[in-house]
């Protein structure tokens, strides 16, 4: 089964006028983590997904979904 994690991290971050560095700072991760999650290279843990959703003011489901 070919599944991947879709996300609208970049879209939401840009809406809020945040840089990757600023979002990384808010979630206490490196900018590389944010960059790789945005590009679909890295699948974040539940904890980080919740932190990202909280920082961006949306629910996890609005931020991430499974692409089939």
């Amino acid at each position, binding site marked *: 089964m070919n599944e991947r994690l879709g996300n609208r991290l970049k879209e939401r971050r840009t809406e809020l006028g945040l*840089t*990757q*560095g*600023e979002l*990384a*700072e808010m979630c*206490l*991760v*490196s*900018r*590389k*983590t944010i*960059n*790789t999650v945005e*590009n679909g290279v*890295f699948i*974040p*843990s539940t904890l*980080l997904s919740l932190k990202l959703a909280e920082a961006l003011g949306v629910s996890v489901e609005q931020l991430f979904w499974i692409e089939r």
Partner: protein
Amino acid sequence: MSYRDRPEFDQPTAESVQRSRRTVAWMIALLIVQQGTAIFRHGADISVQVMGILAWAAVTLTLLWMVFGLPVRWLSERDQAILNDEWNCAISGDAARWGISALAIIGCGLMLARIWEPLDAGLAIYGLVNGALIVTVLRYAWLNRAEPGEDE
């Protein structure tokens, strides 16, 4: 661009440790090879050999510290969280998997080689440990290469 207080100017921050992780890793493989020549130099004085082994142990431990991120007590909680974040844990794990595979392959190679050629124990240990370490560090360095731009 935002600024952050940095009261202890003599201590590295998460950003500086990250930078050195990216740049130094490529050099360490060379250092290990260079030290190997000192350890196994024919006719070397015992003190030279001991010095070589100590230097080798220091580089090896530094490598493990760098790749697997042992606690760095001088850093703030924020810096420690950033340094050992999920991306770093993921690439450390991947690098370790490569290292263990290299260990197994080199070990099998040495076991086969000893059928035809008697092996020197020191050289075998050195080859096994360093082969695995070099693979681990290079894999880590590759996955941790250059910080991407905002929109890359």
